[in-house]
């Protein structure tokens, strides 16, 4: 089974975000990056499917040179080879343009399965995978939390809202968007890190970052959300003092203690 996993690099979740001067995006100069959370789970699922059924896992990441660290980490965890779609602007394009370029980069692979994360933690479009499936002519399922690929047909468990679930069957090749928590993620081993150095990373440079004539969604301004609730902040920077005041408030105002 040949499996392609799409992995995006996003700002580290613990990073304190600052808005740039033009208020068009966050300040990127001193930002640290990590792999998008659900994409890490998509890779793990691909590796497990390969262990069970044999085949090959190919990771594909699109963006500036910095995304190489996501690729290298995936190779160290056990992916066989990688495709890097290179371009500085490619981290900031809408999901239709992104899916168009990604489709171009991976369609020659003729994979049996494409796995993506269910949504990116920065832009949060929740669309790239589904659009990609449409462009590749594949059936898809979103928010997948279990995959059974042992039979002729693919059988997947989808998470629905409010504690409901549903199994779907569909033919291969197919695209699945993976939900976080589908399985426990492995760490890269030293051996894996060494082996990764010899693995192929194919670079692809798209002709244009804006296929089909440009961006369909343009961010004009970003800002911190307006706070709607009057929060009483306690401690004034001193966490321990805040804790003491809080206990007192819980007794005298909230009357919970």
């Amino acid at each position, binding site marked *: 089974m040949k499996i392609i996993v799409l992995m995006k690099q996003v700002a580290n979740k613990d990073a304190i975000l600052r808005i740039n001067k033009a208020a068009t995006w966050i300040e990127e100069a001193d930002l640290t990056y990590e792999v998008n959370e659900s994409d890490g789970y998509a890779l793990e699922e691909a590796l497990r499917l390969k262990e069970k059924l044999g085949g090959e896992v190919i990771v594909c990441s699109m963006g500036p040179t910095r995304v190489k660290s996501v690729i290298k980490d995936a190779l160290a965890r056990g992916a066989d080879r990688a495709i890097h779609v290179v371009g500085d602007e490619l981290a900031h394009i809408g999901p239709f343009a992104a899916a168009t370029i990604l489709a171009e980069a991976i369609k020659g692979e003729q994979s049996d399965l494409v796995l993506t994360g269910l949504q990116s933690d920065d832009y949060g479009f929740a669309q790239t995978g589904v659009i990609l499936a449409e462009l590749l002519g594949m059936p898809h399922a979103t928010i997948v939390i279990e995959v059974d690929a042992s039979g002729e047909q693919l059988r997947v468990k989808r998470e629905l809202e409010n504690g409901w679930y549903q199994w779907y069957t569909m033919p291969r090749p197919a695209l699945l968007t993976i939900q*976080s928590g589908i399985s426990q993620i492995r760490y890269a081993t030293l051996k894996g890190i060494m082996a990764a150095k010899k693995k192929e990373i194919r670079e692809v440079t798209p002709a244009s970052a804006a296929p089909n004539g440009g961006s369909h969604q343009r961010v004009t301004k970003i800002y911190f959300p307006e706070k709607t609730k009057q929060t009483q902040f306690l401690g004034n920077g001193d966490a321990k003092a805040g804790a003491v005041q809080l206990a007192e408030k819980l007794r005298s105002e909230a009357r919970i203690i």
Partner: protein
Amino acid sequence: MSNGILVFAEHRAGAFNKITFEAIAAAQQLGTSLKQPVTAVVLNKDAGLAREIAAFNFDKVISAENDKLAEYTPDAYTDAMQHVVRALDPRYVIMPHTYLVRDFAPKLAARFGRSVVSDCLRFAADDGGSVVFSRRIFLGKIDADVVTEDESPVFATFQSGAFRGEQSEKGTGAPVESMAVEIGEVRMHPEPAFQEVKQAVDLSKADVIVAIGRGIKSQEHIALAEQLAAALGGDLAASRPICDAGWLPIDRQIGSSGQTVAPKLYIALGISGAIQHLVGMKNAGTIVAVNKDPEAPIFDIADYGIVGDLFDVIPTLTEEVKKLKG
């Protein structure tokens, strides 16, 4: 010339879901701002539910009908909606940001060579008829104003809670128009939806919940939060990543894919406050948030906030609570 606003009315198991009425409110308000008529569309095998929604103030209700719409699949819904959108040629297509819409709307938009302005919170329309959508990015930490240079149709989804369902306007009975839609091959075959066996822990009756998020850093530190919960006589709960990592069982998870709770006191420790978490706990009586990031969205719904390190806060708070309780 494309015109009007089309709102997608979602239903499951024979009933519209609550967020559909929020989408209706959003579409009606957009219609008022732009002076454009609003049409609702219901996909189904017959017109039963479409007649129900006709009680709202719409220009008309389209009942898109085909036997393949008896149950939801992305293939059938996309084909049907594509047919309706082509027939009506609306300027805007408004949908609720549900799991079902997330599953087919991007595919639908792709058929028109574009994507969806997804998960919006608000819109602002000016006199010239241009619309700015605001959506939340970075897991709720930042808002972004977005304009689209698309020709019609523009597809947009609104987040749960962005509009109030009660604000959707009733009308005098909109005409229902049946439209037989063509649907090609449907490749996915759904089995009946089900719920997992009853959860071992029912947090919905807890009075006090101490909830931990990724800020707790490692599994060993959970004991700290447990001691606080014990001192308060409360239960321990968590955000999704904690349960994903296997540090706590899934029945301790709060949020859209976990439990919904409304305790008297909810203490969120190292939880950022993503919408999927907030929907599970925002109705708590008193909400306390401890986070080292002053911009963390959890503070937006907190009554009391401490900006600081949870490892400083928890032990002191536990001691103080014990003292006060005597």
